[in-house]
């Protein structure tokens, strides 16, 4: 005989229960993912190792790879696993746009300008 219990919990109650049950264990609420979510919410630059960069969707988070090729890979601590290694750098769209404009202006200056060393 099967007993069917109708689920009457709201999404909010389920989330609260999940947080409570995993309070002292790694979970999507207590692990580095939460740190990443905070970074994204605050529009901070995000550094992700190879493994976590694959799981990150910049478009969904309204982020972009740094427009300057030199800055797309930086040495830093991954914002999820905290490992220090050669990692991917992402900027929020607004900052990425600003950096792209600066870079385009500089590239134009280099192309036409005199590289002077005295």
């Amino acid at each position, binding site marked *: 005989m099967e007993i069917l219990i109708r689920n009457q919990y709201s999404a909010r109650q389920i989330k609260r229960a999940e947080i409570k049950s995993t309070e002292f264990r790694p979970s999507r609420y207590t692990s580095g993912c939460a740190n990443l979510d905070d970074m994204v919410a605050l529009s901070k630059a995000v550094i992700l190792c190879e493994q976590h960069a694959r799981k990150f969707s910049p478009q969904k988070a309204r982020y972009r790879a740094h427009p300057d090729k030199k800055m797309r890979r930086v040495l830093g601590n991954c914002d999820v696993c905290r490992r220090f290694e050669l990692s991917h750098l992402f900027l929020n769209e607004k900052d990425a746009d600003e950096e792209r404009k600066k870079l385009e202006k500089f590239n*134009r200056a280099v192309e036409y300008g005199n590289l002077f060393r005295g």
Partner: protein
Amino acid sequence: MEFQYDLGGGSSAIVKKYQVAATNTTIGRPYLKGATDGTGLVVATVSGAVDFVGVNIDTAGTYVTAQQSDNSDTARLQSTIINPLAVYRARLAGGAANEALSIRTVTTASTDGLTVTTSAYDSNIPDMNEGTVWGYSGANAGKVRKITSTAANAATVIVAFPYDIAVGDTFLFAGIHPLHTITAQFGTDMTNIDATVAIAGDATVITVEMILNDLAGSGTTESYALIQFADSLLGATVT
């Protein structure tokens, strides 16, 4: 200013997140070691960069110290490039507020190409001696020389410009010069170099090279200096 390359030969920027001690909403500012009893990194001053730490690539937001009513984190971290030998690019500005460089028009011809005479501009106030002068328009457009002496209305070079300097030619001036000059002055938003300030004996910033444009390359707004901070907290220090 933005990361350009590392004099150590590595191509990667090293980025760390640090607490800062003041509100900042601008990217590309040089940051220094925190003060005693301070709470974090502090932005450099227009002419001071002792104990340089790095340049920020995101913003810290509003600095707070009191506990927040929603219990949100009060720490204000900022991603900072900390390579001690990093070279950064900074635009040359014609004043502290990031103005375009001023165009100086020649009023007396120089048939030996050694003197740039500009009756409406005194290159000795502030003194551009030991700085750089380059042609903006005219036969010497794009040609760059080091200024070796200045006087009211005139700047002199030792290595002659290749063509005679004619009345009506225009030139641009900057108070810095690669390697020989070891001081720079920042604009008030701390992202560009104020090229109108005289060279002084500060020695915390070295110009490694310059990218200088003439009229065709919009030189008044698109000329740059590539600089290195010589007094790095994490690397060699000079003071």
